[in-house]
């Protein structure tokens, strides 16, 4: 079996987080809205309507390009990309061609335990298209419905050089890219809702020097489907090469339900977009002082932050990586640390209990009812061994549900503080007296009887004893009585 060389490049579209559309002032808040309610003559392409650029689009796109370490071009020029499709009312999309926002960037990320870097070819802005529906109770046979609510929402397109070598790398790059656009507030990066979309160019070759035939894969709408579609496509191309069959240069669609890629329209014809500068939009100059202002708005990015967490808080790489993925989670962590300075313990609680509760409630940390101070207060009690970990988990769950401060929940639920050692000794002695049979069983070698006795102690203390301490005290008592 000969070696295969896989080359992947990704094109990612992110909806920019603006209130108004790119060239008109219709709302971008289109999810779940009635069709064609967020429209105007500009975004529906009525004759005579003229586009006026939303300044915020340039700001967010430049911020994105800077965060991806691109060179920013001094002039922004909009081009018309011409093609016919019913979701594109003007017959062209306003996009960019030879003067994008930024070029030659770099993204670093970790994949398979080592640091990788992918070169960014270009970052440009363009408008989103409308949406088509092909099925519906009132839709006549052989027709489609068009909704222009999404039409004109600003997108930033981020194109990599073909530097990715495996589906894992493609997925890990994408996770890092999403993390970056979220950190800088440029996009919410939600793949399921379509605010982050990914197309891939994949080629497989038997020769490290030459690239194979490029196949474009579309319609992947989760990190998992990107991974699986690329895996499928690579296997398909390898199988063709094995049989010495030709690989066609084409566009293929990922079919999630069938787990395969399917050939779509022929490529040559579709690629003839006849770009030309849009005469309705003048070129914009980007002033160095504007760039400086925008650069100041870029926060510490995920990778730098992870590295700082590893040094400053001595966190393991894996944990630090998960902690920094969402800016809000990392912010919460650092805020909490100000009041409870035990990074390892806090990190463990964040990555297990806090994230578990967030997942169960399907909310993010900013929507949750607990504040960093609340969590710090709870962990201080655990740390001082005033309440057990198990009890604290229950209190945390309650905090997520009802909010409120730790002490209030403790009072409301009638939770008493952990039984101290002297009290516990008393309870242990009582338990032994009340359960002579179990004591006898234990002394005759039945280990299980000890677990029963620990259970009894926990029951009497209503779970508020430290089980480890209870066990030690029991053993001490039992062995001394021998």
């Amino acid at each position, binding site marked *: 079996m000969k070696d295969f060389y896989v080359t992947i490049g990704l094109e990612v579209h992110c909806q920019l987080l603006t209130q108004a559309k790119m060239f008109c*002032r219709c709302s971008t808040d289109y999810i779940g809205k009635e069709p*064609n309610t967020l429209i*105007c003559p500009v975004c529906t392409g009525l004759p005579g309507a003229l586009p006026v650029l939303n300044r915020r689009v340039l700001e967010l796109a430049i911020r994105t390009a800077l965060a991806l370490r691109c060179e920013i071009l001094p002039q922004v020029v909009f081009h018309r990309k011409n093609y016919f499709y019913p979701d594109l009312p003007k017959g062209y999309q306003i996009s960019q061609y030879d003067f994008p926002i930024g070029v030659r960037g770099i993204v670093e990320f970790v994949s398979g335990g080592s640091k990788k870097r992918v070169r960014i070819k270009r970052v440009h802005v363009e408008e989103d298209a409308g949406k088509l529906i092909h099925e519906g109770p009132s839709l006549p046979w052989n*027709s489609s419905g068009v909704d222009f609510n999404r039409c004109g929402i600003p997108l930033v397109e981020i194109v990599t050089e073909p530097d990715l070598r495996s589906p894992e790398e493609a997925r890990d790059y994408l996770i890092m890219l999403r993390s970056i656009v979220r950190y800088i507030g440029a996009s919410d990066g939600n793949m399921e809702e379509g605010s982050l979309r990914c197309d891939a160019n994949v080629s497989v070759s038997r020769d490290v020097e030459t690239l194979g035939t490029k196949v474009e894969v579309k319609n992947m709408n989760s990190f998992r489907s990107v991974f699986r579609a690329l895996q499928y496509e690579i296997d398909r191309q390898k199988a063709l090469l094995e049989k010495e069959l030709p690989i066609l240069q084409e566009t293929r669609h990922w079919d999630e339900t069938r787990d395969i890629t399917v050939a779509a329209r022929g490529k040559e014809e579709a690629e003839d977009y006849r770009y030309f500068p849009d005469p309705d939009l003048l070129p914009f100059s980007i002033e160095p002082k504007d760039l400086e202002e925008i650069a100041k708005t870029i926060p510490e990015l995920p990778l730098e932050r992870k590295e700082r967490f590893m040094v400053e808080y001595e966190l393991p790489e894996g944990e630090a990586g998960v902690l920094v993925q969402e800016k809000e989670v990392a912010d919460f962590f650092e805020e909490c640390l100000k009041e409870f300075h035990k990074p390892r313990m806090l990190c463990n609680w964040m990555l297990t209990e806090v994230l578990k509760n967030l997942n169960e409630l399907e909310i993010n940390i900013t929507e949750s009812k607990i504040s960093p101070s609340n969590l710090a207060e709870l962990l201080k009690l655990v740390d001082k061994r005033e309440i057990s970990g198990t009890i604290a988990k229950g209190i945390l769950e309650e905090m997520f549900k009802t909010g409120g401060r730790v002490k209030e929940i403790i009072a409301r639920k009638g939770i008493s503080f952990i039984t101290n050692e002297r009290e516990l000794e008393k309870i242990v002695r009582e338990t032994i007296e009340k359960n002579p049979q179990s004591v006898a069983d234990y002394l005759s070698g039945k280990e299980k009887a000890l677990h029963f006795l620990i259970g009894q102690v926990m029951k009497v203390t209503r779970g508020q004893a430290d089980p480890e301490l209870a066990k030690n005290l029991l053993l001490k008592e039992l062995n001394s009585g021998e």
Partner: protein
Amino acid sequence: MSKKLSLEEMKKVAQLAKLHFEERELLQFLQDVNGIIAHFEKLDRLNLEEVSPTSHISWSQPPTHGDEVLEWQEKESIFQYAPQVIARYFIVPKVVEKEEK
């Protein structure tokens, strides 16, 4: 070395624009377009070393708008231009990406 558009290329441009023309019309366009190309060739002979490409003749910074929503009040009127509207959708002949085996 003058560049000229062929009748085939002219047909392809028409097809991409989804416009249908008679052969004699295409021949007329061909003549016009080739005239324009010939004019550009004249421009090519000028020394433009110091001149950057012009994508627009105006040099002022263009107008922009801020990121505030302003709802269009007459959006219901747009439906009168549509041949068919059902449940607020504009209805068009069915479009399906054709799949090849």
